[in-house]
């Protein structure tokens, strides 16, 4: 046999660069997304070996069916009060996002990021976990912080970098922090905090604690080495951690194919590490709740980590610096086959006779009013540039104690 491929007349190689199914001007194409019926996925016992539940990494755990009923083994059988609370927090988050987006457009702050369409991913998880459990969020889990009861006015103070900003004007808007509420300081770098969630969980195990950790990462950032470090450490030390991949289909302009999402489901990344893996309809509040609860029970029983792919859609722009109509069909969000998480939970409650369209309208108004009242309070302190902490604070917290350089630099600035 000839050793030279050309002499064997083999075809020349060609470089593959993936392309999404639709660009601006093309018809929306979600034909490749074929959600299995609600209730179809089996729910294994939490003691099941990860190797015996591999199929759950390729399907979608879904609870809410087309008739808005909760069906199948993953139905968490939640009371109406808890569901109404989930609906309220999601609706409040959306009202908050809308207002802060407008404030950025009016020049009252430099930057904002919405989580529209992804509210359930954070809210259902927050309600399924214990208050002491620790969250390592990305910049799109503001709803988790709201679900923990963190005051909207404090969030706005951070957005405005004003004199009452808990981050003392140091961080870009939306990079919240609250240790008290189990919400780790958001860095803004991608993927970096995923393995830190594992480390926190290892510490909890080391101390014989009962608290667990939950980490978030975007599907795009699973390409970072930190994602793989998180899974390796979680697997090696059987860390009590829930690792959520929020697959919202788009990383700025890059569709999930640029994270190899069209080659294999993100949940399936867990299989290679021997980590239990679930793929969940992220717009189904009940499915997110049930999957989180299942993973939390496993973690608390010392059975180790779970990787959950939250399959959802980024309905809004990446940030106020982004314009998605430049890279995807403008009407794509309206056609997402898994719907909207608020609509779906609302319809479920209505189907159960526990809610009505009129009550939803009232709730929406109340949420807008709550946000407006918080904004009034925060804006009275000041928006970006009108109010801020004392300039000398910019030299604090670099170290626990200032060395001579920082003292001299502060004097040089005259503050």
């Amino acid at each position, binding site marked *: 046999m000839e050793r030279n491929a050309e002499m064997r007349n083999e075809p020349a190689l060609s470089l593959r*660069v993936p392309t999404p199914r639709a660009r601006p001007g093309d018809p929306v194409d979600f034909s490749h997304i074929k959600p299995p019926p609600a209730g179809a996925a089996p729910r294994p016992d939490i003691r099941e070996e990860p190797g015996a539940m591999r199929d759950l990494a390729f399907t979608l755990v879904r609870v809410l069916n087309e008739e808005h009923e909760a069906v199948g083994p993953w139905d968490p059988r939640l009371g109406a009060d808890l569901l109404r609370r989930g609906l309220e927090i999601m609706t409040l988050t959306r009202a908050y996002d809308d207002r802060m987006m407008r404030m950025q457009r009016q020049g009252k702050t430099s930057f904002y990021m919405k989580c529209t369409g992804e509210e359930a991913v954070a809210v259902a998880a927050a309600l399924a976990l214990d208050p002491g459990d620790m969250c390592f969020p990305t910049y799109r889990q503001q709803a988790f912080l709201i679900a923990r009861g963190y005051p909207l006015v404090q969030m706005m103070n951070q957005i405005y970098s004003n004199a009452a900003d808990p981050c003392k004007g140091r961080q870009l808007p939306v990079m919240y922090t609250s240790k008290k509420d189990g919400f780790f300081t958001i860095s803004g770098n*991608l993927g970096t905090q995923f393995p830190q969630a594992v480390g926190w969980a290892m510490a909890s195990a080391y101390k014989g604690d009962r608290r667990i950790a939950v980490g978030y990462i975007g599907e795009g950032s699973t390409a970072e080495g930190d994602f793989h470090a998180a899974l390796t450490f979680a697997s090696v030390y059987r860390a009590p951690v829930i690792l959520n991949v929020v697959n919202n289909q788009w990383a700025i*302009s*890059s569709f999930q194919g640029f994270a190899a999402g069209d080659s294999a489901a993100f949940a399936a990344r867990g299989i290679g590490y021997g980590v239990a893996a679930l793929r969940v309809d992220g717009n189904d509040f009940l499915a997110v709740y049930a999957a989180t609860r299942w993973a939390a029970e496993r973690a608390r029983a010392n059975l180790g980590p779970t990787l959950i792919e939250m399959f959802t859609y980024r309905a809004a722009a990446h940030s106020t610096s982004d314009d998605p109509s430049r890279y995807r069909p403008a009407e794509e969000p309206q056609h997402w086959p898994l719907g909207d998480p608020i609509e779906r939970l609302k319809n479920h409650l209505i189907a159960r006779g526990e809610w009505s369209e009129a009550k939803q309208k009232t709730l929406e108004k109340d949420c807008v009013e709550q946000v407006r009242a918080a904004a009034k309070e925060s804006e009275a302190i000041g928006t*970006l540039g009108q109010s801020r902490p004392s300039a000398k604070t910019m030299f604090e917290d670099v170290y626990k104690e200032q060395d001579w350089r920082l003292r001299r630099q502060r004097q040089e600035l005259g503050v």
Partner: protein
Amino acid sequence: MPAMNMIQALNSAMDVMLARDPDVLIFGEDVGYFGGVFRVTEGLQAKHGLTRCFDAPIAEGGIVAAAIGMGAYGLRPVIEIQFADYIYPAYDQLVSEAARLRYRSAGDFSAPITLRSPYGGGIFGGQTHSQSPEAIFTHVAGLKTVIPSNPYDAKGLLISAIEDDDPVIFFEPKRLYNGPFDGWHEKPVEPWAKSPLSDVPEGHYNVPLGKAAIARKGEDLTVLAYGTMVHVAIAAAEHAEVDAEVIDLRTLVPLDIETIAESVNRTGRCVVVHEATRTSGFGAELVALVQEHCFYRLEAPIERVTGWDTPYPHAFEWEYFPGPKRVGAAMRRVMGRT
């Protein structure tokens, strides 16, 4: 010649090189169809094809590593790291690999890659979109570091970087993309079109690596600057009423020591400026070199004006940014005026 802003000039450099050399290709996060978050690669995929300018996974280490592999094959990859603040996952690939391939293989392999990345502050980007990490690259033997300050240089330097056979870190001052910025942040933004430096030839030309430019001639003292700080230094000279000679270094490594030494030996005074944090910044290297080359001609201690030794704080953009007032005050101190 068409007036180009820095984005258009950089785009033109890559357009020219894609057309001239089939071994040049471009990749990075969002650079393909979308054309980059700052639009620097806009239209290049449509014009030159899907495999000549394409998106990459969000893995900065992977982007650099893939570029090294392509370079080993014989290509000339031009890669973008979306913000310099995101470059750290690629540090191992740059320091342990790209910088040393030629040395450790005794010339058997090399990494002819160009890494473009927007850097610097002035856009209220907070600590993750404002950093100036040039010194952690100038410290590494085997890497070249280039920082343009205007559209004409940006295009000519980028073409030289792509044609260079060694790895080049090419930092683009993002505050200068759309117009010159002299640090007087309350003034309205000026477009590049008003500056002669926006006269950019459409075709191929080089601005050589390792050659500084005199951005402002002067007799009183010498300012060593690069990127945005070139414009700040010129504004500071007017503000402080000092006849400063402002040297635009353009390339930090290799450094044009002749131009620096000639100027400082003539003026006898020197101010070094950069946006990056002070401690172990590139300014420390410049101060050391100036005292090595010009000690007997110096008439005053050399001053450094830099960012403070803190992360870049969102609400204190203009306290952090070493603007014309601070640079001007240093000039006056060096002149013995207060």
